[in-house]
């Protein structure tokens, strides 16, 4: 099927080569990091994880969100998602690849990465994340590829694929739960030390992931004759609505516990996030922007009229995606370090090379996504 990705319009090749350029620049920046060390990033002794690990966390959510199309279709026989599941599964594949790469670019001794397998350590949540992400990648690759292959040959998918699909549903939940456990089990970091981390991660994932899927679907619709259908998009929009409201609700639950208990070491982080500590206010404007986006998106999604109108739906989906990207991709990880366990404040801002490397990883993800979606579109167009 890969041959479908090797033939395309001029626009397709422009996209492919633009992505390759972004990847190339990111690779160059990574070579610089490899020779100089992580000193070229904005991370520090106090803020020991930054943009890379935050992107990893955010993208685990995007990967997990495929379950939001797989579950209604396979468990509830919701036919409208029939054409959509493959898009969700392929989005998951590219997101998991990016997750792996973001971990890889973050480690100080990449040549020793296999030590994770050579000395498996079940007490480390990283070990379990490795298993859950690896398994999820394989599940989606097999399920996506086999279903598409059968579609191309116009035959029913083999029976053995069904159990794998059922397995992929709880597995999707597990990848983001385990990722939340990386943070929520550490007594040293009061900001993350809360049982609501996993539910918050899942809610934000099920909002941002399907929002991105809606946007990608509109894009696919625009550039090809393949249309997954209005009903599918509208159902996804309802899923986004519920999830984004749940995400805000969970945040408010957390805020109640933190503020009502009045425990300093919990309050300080939220204070830093939304108001700043002393003169340190780097994240404040971003966080309020995220709040405004979330509120506007909820309003637009709640009213059926604006949810159904294409232009406002697109705006709402962009707002949800950006809002949650700021929340998870900027605020969530870094704020765990500010203030530090010794109550000192060191701020964090990613450096230029760090951003280039991150863009390079996103470039690889979108490259894989483009190739996979191209194959889907070509097969669907042939059918039409």
């Amino acid at each position, binding site marked *: 099927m890969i041959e479908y990705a090797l033939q395309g319009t001029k626009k397709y090749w422009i996209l492919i080569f633009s992505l390759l350029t972004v990847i190339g620049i990111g690779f160059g920046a990574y070579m610089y990091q490899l020779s100089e060390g992580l000193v070229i990033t904005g991370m520090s002794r106090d803020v020991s994880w930054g943009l890379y690990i935050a992107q990893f966390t955010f993208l685990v959510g995007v990967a997990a969100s495929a379950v939001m199309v797989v579950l209604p279709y396979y468990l509830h026989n919701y036919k409208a998602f029939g054409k959509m599941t493959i898009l969700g599964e392929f989005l998951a594949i590219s997101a998991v690849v990016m997750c792996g790469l973001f971990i890889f670019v973050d480690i*100080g001794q990449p040549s020793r990465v296999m*030590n994770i397998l050579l000395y498996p350590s079940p007490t480390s949540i990283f070990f379990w994340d490795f298993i859950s992400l690896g398994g999820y990648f394989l599940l989606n690759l097999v399920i996506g590829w086999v279903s598409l292959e059968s579609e191309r040959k116009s035959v029913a998918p083999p029976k053995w694929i069904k159990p794998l699909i059922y397995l992929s549903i709880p597995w999707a939940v597990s990848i983001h739960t385990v990722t939340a456990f990386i943070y929520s089990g550490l007594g040293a970091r009061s900001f993350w030390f809360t049982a609501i981390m996993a539910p918050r991660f899942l809610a934000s994932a099920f909002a941002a992931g399907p929002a991105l899927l809606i946007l990608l679907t509109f894009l696919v619709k625009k550039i090809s004759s393949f249309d997954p259908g209005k009903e599918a998009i509208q159902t996804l929009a309802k899923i986004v609505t519920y999830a984004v409201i749940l995400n805000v609700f969970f945040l408010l639950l957390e805020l109640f516990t933190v503020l009502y208990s009045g425990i300093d070491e919990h309050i300080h982080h939220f204070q830093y996030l939304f108001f700043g500590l002393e003169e340190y206010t780097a994240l404040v404007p971003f966080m309020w922007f995220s709040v405004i986006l979330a509120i506007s998106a909820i309003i637009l999604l709640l009213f059926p009229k604006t949810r159904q109108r294409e232009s406002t739906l697109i705006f709402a989906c962009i707002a949800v995606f950006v809002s949650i990207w700021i929340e998870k991709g900027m605020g969530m990880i870094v704020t765990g370090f500010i203030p530090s366990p010794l109550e000192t404040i060191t701020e964090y801002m990613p450096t230029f090379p760090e951003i280039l490397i991150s863009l390079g990883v996103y470039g690889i993800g979108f490259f894989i996504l483009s190739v996979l979606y191209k194959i889907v579109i070509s097969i669907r167009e042939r059918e039409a």
Partner: protein
Amino acid sequence: MGMDRRKFLKVSGLASLSGFGVSSSAQAKDTDSKQTKRWALIVDMNKCREAKDCTDCITACHKVHNVPEIKDKKREIKWIWKETFGHAFPAQNHQYISEEVRNSPNLVLCNHCDNPPCVGVCPTQATFRRDSDGLVMMDFHRCIGCRYCMVACPYGARSFNWQDAKPHIKEINTKFPIRSKGVVEKCNLCAERIAKEQIPACAEACKAKAITFGDLHDPHSEVRKILSENDTIRRKPHLHTLPNVYYIM
């Protein structure tokens, strides 16, 4: 006594079997034993404060372990250093504390916890706890530099080599490894000196005799004597990491 102890071990054994007894089994590890040692440090802050701006212990430690001197605070590497009372003991701090205590720096280093969070999170067992003497050690050649241990440590005891350390080491001690860039490091309580029956470099260098080193499993050791005769505190006891560094305030 014998009966109580047996009962306790039974209960803690059951608890750890079920997987929920991490804390009680850690305490069981902490009981006296003739076979194992439990190295500990006691810092007498009264003696340390009198010496004012003295940094002999820090200099000695950093010299013997090739700890680079990096000016940029964000990339700094330190095994033993000074923190204000509020930073070292945030939970014990209050606004009416004596000026003397508030303003004088406190020595901090790796606590060589009995229940070390850094060891649990390490995905390669590059950080491990030696059962024979309780030291929390590092294999610099196995560490992949993921920095999960730095995230898990509640004491900020760990440093990462953000860059090549060599240009920042004044005098290289050829008897101790220089860490490559991209790995984490921390105080090893001078495991290499203990192996030669020497006391840690910081304790040896302290002219005020403010640092006492010894074995908690030996009921006749000096550290046990000091602990039984003085009021001592540990950093962040509520986290149940069970530090082996004690402070006399």
